[in-house]
């Protein structure tokens, strides 16, 4: 079969997603026709400024916030950096402890570690075998010296959704600001910042079908944040730099679409996810689901397959038009055992066989069939070459 005719089943949406058609269409005028700087004091600028504020309202509506509680950023990673560094610097040296879960995204983990160099103490909260943080454990860990707690809403490597409301309540009772990274859940799980009782929440464009290069941070009214990018009046002095107007328009349009289609989308993704999980566990011996079975992202299926090297599996699947990942896109290139899987207590050898399917509404049951047509064969071929697989079973059971 020629490459051009190859069936493609792209299932790595946690790494990158295509921009949705209506989103791209909404953005295009802001590259050329409506190019003016929103900070200018003439009509061309006013019009663009008004559009920027309309998008802010749409993003706010998606998460139950007020528009003035939204800061546009360049990415989810910048939103995480601003939440953590902005909060810690705003209370600089008044409290010197930061608590994060052990399975946070690198933009959270490394922002917290940055403060270790400034004599802060960082506590990495452990998770259970499903990746869940225990609110009781957080309660016991909190003290008066805690400046911030950051625990992600959903994990993009194992799909687990954390009990954010319970965790945030513990922090509220102790007067400690609480941040959650909602990049993995935005658009597929209902988010209401007041119901969740969070002080700060990060999101990004791509999971919603907006382009790369745009994200946002929700910050509760009266939360002080030290800006990371000092500049002019943009974002009311909280984030300098001329606004990425096309990106902001894309995020606003994507948020509007997500709001109206979330239930239908989540139902579709859940059906695909459950079909894929059932098939893999039934047809691939010694394959294990990672993360929580029920409390998981609608479009997320992740496994560890024994006696398999994840990178080899990904490569061979891609030759059959199946595009998946071994873990988070930025971490998988490091060829290091995933810290997330280690935190779940998965043995290092088994963690090597990690494979993550992140689905979107464009995926179909036909894509799942395509995966199940090739995955068992590819696994069998790789195991045939593996020194730790003999006579249809692992040499030593590592699960």
């Amino acid at each position, binding site marked *: 079969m020629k490459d051009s005719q190859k069936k493609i089943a792209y299932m790595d949406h946690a790494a990158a997603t295509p921009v949705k058609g209506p989103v791209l269409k909404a953005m295009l005028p802001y590259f050329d026709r409506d190019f003016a700087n929103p900070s200018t004091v003439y009509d061309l600028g006013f019009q663009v400024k008004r559009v920027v504020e309309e998008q802010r309202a749409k993003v706010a509506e998606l998460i139950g916030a007020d528009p003035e509680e939204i800061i546009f950023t360049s990415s989810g990673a910048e939103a995480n950096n601003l939440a953590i560094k902005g909060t810690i610097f*705003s209370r600089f040296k008044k409290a010197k402890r930061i608590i994060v879960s052990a399975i946070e995204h690198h933009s959270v983990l490394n922002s917290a570690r940055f403060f270790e160099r400034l004599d802060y103490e960082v506590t990495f909260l452990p998770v259970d075998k499903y990746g869940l943080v225990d609110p009781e454990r957080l309660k016991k860990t909190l003290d008066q010296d805690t400046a911030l707690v950051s625990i992600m809403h959903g994990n993009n490597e194992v799909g687990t959704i954390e009990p954010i409301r319970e965790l945030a309540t513990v922090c509220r009772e102790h007067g400690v600001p609480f941040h959650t990274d909602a990049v993995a859940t935005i658009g597929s799980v209902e988010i209401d910042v007041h119901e969740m009782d969070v002080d700060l929440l990060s999101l990004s464009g791509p999971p919603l079908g907006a382009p790369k290069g745009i994200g946002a941070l929700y910050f509760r009214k009266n939360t002080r944040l030290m800006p990371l990018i000092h500049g002019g009046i943009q974002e009311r002095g*909280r984030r300098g730099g001329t606004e990425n107007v096309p990106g902001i328009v894309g995020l606003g349009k994507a948020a509007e679409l997500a709001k109206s289609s979330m239930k239908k989308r989540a139902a579709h993704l859940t059906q695909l996810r459950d079909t894929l999980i059932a098939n893999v566990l039934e047809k691939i011996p010694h394959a294990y689901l990672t993360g929580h079975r029920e409390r998981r992202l609608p479009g997320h299926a992740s496994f560890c397959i024994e006696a398999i090297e994840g990178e080899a599996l990904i490569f061979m699947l891609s030759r059959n038009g199946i595009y998946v990942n071994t873990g988070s896109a930025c971490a998988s290139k490091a060829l290091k055992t995933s810290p997330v899987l280690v935190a779940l207590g998965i043995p290092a050898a088994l963690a090597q066989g990690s494979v993550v399917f992140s689905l979107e509404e464009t995926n179909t049951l036909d894509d799942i069939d395509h995966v199940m047509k090739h995955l068992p064969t590819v696994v069998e071929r790789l195991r045939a070459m593996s020194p730790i697989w003999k006579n249809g079973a692992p040499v030593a059971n590592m699960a």
Partner: protein
Amino acid sequence: MKFIENQKADDTLDLVFRMCPIHLLEPGERLEGLKRGQVLEILTDYDGALEDIPAWCAKSGQEFIGIKEDNDCYKLYIRKVK
């Protein structure tokens, strides 16, 4: 510069960590939501605001009441005149 104590306010605008020229833009916006005679409290850690805000009040026809120095910021009080 007039230092004052125990000034009550009807609304507070927190500008701490936000720099020039935000302190000259947001007070006017916030005053729009107040009635004549009501007092706006502005929190800022920007030294330049100590001169700029009284000057802005004089120029825009609002009454600058005074300043209070707090632990981590200045508190400036404006009465809405028009």
